[in-house]
């Protein structure tokens, strides 16, 4: 026998080789294609924003855990890294660095560690950070650098409107969809990511690629992303069918804005989404409906961040009412 | 193994026996059971009826005055009680108001919608037997 004392523990004595760290790094991997597209599209400013967000998230997690909460430091588990990445993905490239840092502080300090750290937060940290910045700095947060032409410049890229922004503004001016659509980028551009928008929401294609990887690796299940996108498509489709001059077509709604980023990477955050499949579907329908309501009738052109946060609040309620079916809960078993 | 007597499908409220008449026990409820998380519980409440009293019949055991007890109520009954006490009269009131507004002047409609509560509660009074049977709470001594 080994000279070290024998180990005693309760069963089971074997364990699957999945760990939460591996899960997290799978997500990071899945985000890479989209990040590469963004680096190509926005150039240096994307690098700066991403690095600022990631580094500051990690640093804040370290500082707060070490010096304020005095709990073990967990920056190695990869969750703060994801929060940083996703926060950056939700910001316009080239946002002033101090704002990025403030957003990270809010995400990590307020939304995550105030609740006790990984696993206890009710709201999606990256989104809390993002929405905090959006509400506080609406001007800077809606200054979108246009794609590609400016990717080698360091500062002050020319800014353009996002497709959803153009629609919202157009509708406010009383324009019809056919007038607006002349200004809109093509669907292919949106698929590839050659439009204005947040750093990471650019390329639907790259995001879907990563999403499929996550589903294949069983990091996330298909229920949330598919339901969210289907709900968005269905609802916007209904409105579009009723009045195509007033409302944009469903394909545009699915491809534009943060719909895909949100559906695959943010609504699926394990911590802040329901546990059971049924619950996930309910949650995802909620996200989809609120997103569409905000996009079509609210004052923000894009609503998925808010929608996810609002539904985050409903998760405890959903978990409460959509429990797995207990074995043997059926009153009388049927005789065969 | 058998089924476990589930002690969790109920509401429990502690109180003190304040009067005993035969099998009818009057219990004064401690007010703060549901406010346990409220820091201001000591200072809370505007109405003077801070200590609620309820009457319970329990022929099985005897109780003495000032005995601390727990009142136990089946969980589903709480919502049912809320429906009878608040939600139904509310629906009646708003219904009357909407109808009344269409037919009469505003003030009359308003007064009517308040007045309709009188027959409602009279009706509830008439259903005494039903309520007695439905809302049975029981006592546990501590």
């Amino acid at each position, binding site marked *: 026998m080994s000279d070290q004392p024998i180990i005693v523990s309760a069963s089971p004595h074997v364990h699957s080789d999945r760990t939460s760290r591996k899960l997290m790094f799978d997500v990071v991997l899945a985000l890479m294609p989209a990040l590469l597209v963004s680096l190509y599209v926005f150039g240096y400013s994307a690098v700066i924003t991403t690095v600022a967000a990631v580094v500051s998230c990690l640093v804040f997690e370290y500082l707060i855990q070490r010096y304020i909460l005095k709990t073990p430091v967990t920056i190695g588990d990869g969750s703060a890294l994801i929060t940083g990445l996703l926060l950056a993905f939700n910001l316009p490239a080239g946002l002033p660095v101090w704002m990025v840092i403030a957003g990270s502080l809010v995400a990590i300090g307020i939304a995550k560690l105030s609740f006790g750290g990984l696993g206890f937060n009710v709201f999606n940290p990256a989104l809390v950070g993002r929405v905090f910045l959006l509400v506080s700095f609406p001007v800077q947060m809606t200054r979108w650098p246009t794609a590609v032409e400016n990717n080698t410049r360091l500062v002050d890229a020319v800014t353009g409107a996002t497709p959803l922004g153009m629609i919202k503004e157009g509708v406010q001016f009383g324009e019809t969809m056919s007038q607006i659509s002349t200004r809109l980028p093509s669907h292919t551009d949106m698929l590839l990511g050659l439009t204005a928008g947040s750093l990471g929401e650019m390329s639907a294609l790259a995001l879907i690629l990563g999403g499929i990887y996550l589903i294949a690796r069983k990091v996330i299940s298909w229920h949330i992303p598919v339901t969210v996108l289907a709900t968005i498509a269905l609802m916007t489709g209904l409105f579009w069918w009723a009045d195509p001059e007033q409302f944009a077509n469903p394909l545009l709604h699915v491809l534009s804005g943060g719909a895909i980023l949100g559906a695959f990477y943010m609504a699926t955050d394990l911590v802040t989404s329901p546990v059971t499949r049924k619950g996930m579907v309910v949650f995802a329908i909620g996200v989809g409906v609120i997103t569409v309501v905000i996009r079509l009738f609210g*004052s923000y052109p894009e609503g998925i961040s808010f929608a996810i946060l609002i539904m985050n609040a409903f998760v405890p309620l959903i978990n409460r009412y959509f429990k797995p079916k207990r074995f043997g809960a059926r009153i009388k078993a049927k005789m065969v | 193994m058998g089924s476990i007597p589930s002690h969790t499908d109920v509401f429990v409220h502690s109180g003190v026996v304040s009067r005993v008449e035969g099998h009818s026990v009057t219990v004064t409820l401690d007010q703060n059971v549901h406010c346990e998380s409220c820091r201001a519980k000591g200072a809370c409440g505007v109405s003077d009826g801070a200590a609620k009293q309820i009457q319970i019949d329990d022929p099985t055991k005897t109780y003495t005055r000032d005995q601390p007890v727990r009142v136990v109520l089946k969980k589903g009954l709480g919502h049912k009680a809320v429906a009878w006490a608040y939600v139904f009269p509310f629906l009646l009131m708003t219904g009357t108001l909407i109808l009344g507004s269409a037919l009469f002047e505003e003030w009359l409609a308003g007064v009517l919608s308040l007045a309709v509560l009188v027959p409602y509660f009279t009706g509830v009074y008439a259903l005494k037997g039903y309520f007695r049977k439905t809302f049975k709470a029981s006592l546990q001594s501590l």
Partner: protein
Amino acid sequence: MKPKRRASTLANMVLVLLAITLAAGVTLGFVNQWTLEPKAAAQRARKLEALSSVLPEFNNQPVDQVVRLAVGRDSIEYYPAYMDDTFVGAAVTGYSEKGYSGNVRIMVGFEPDGTILNIAVLEQKETPGLGTKMKGESFIRQFRGQNPSGFDLRVEKDGGEVDALAGATISSRAFCEAALMAYEAYVDQQNAQPDK
């Protein structure tokens, strides 16, 4: 130690409560009487303050010479100002229902030729930090000394010359609409009473 308390008999209860409510009634009645004047004065003072901030020096009582004009769903006010009986300008209110949240009401001071002297915001419920910046010097500054006859009182986005507040185009648009309303009313008023 404990003071003896009045027993809770019906008579006692009614009497004491009656006494207290009566006392309250008297007090409040009197305080109301007493503050009626100051309340009115305060309102007047606020108006005067707004007036003097947007008008050149005057020595008449514009508040007493106010002209009410019905415009749209609401009415606006026209306050002429005189210095020793010479017309030195007028303050005209304007409003817009297109604010981000609720109405925007402003008071525009015009020189006799219609040049804007100054603008004061009377009422707005815009979002703090966004729409509320319409009260700020840097926004108002661009209107001073402009004559709307040669200055397109619309935000740049709509083809006008007003530099909108960043992130608050809606508020800026409402502000401009109110200013334009005031200007048009002023012009109408001048046309109706050409002597002034």
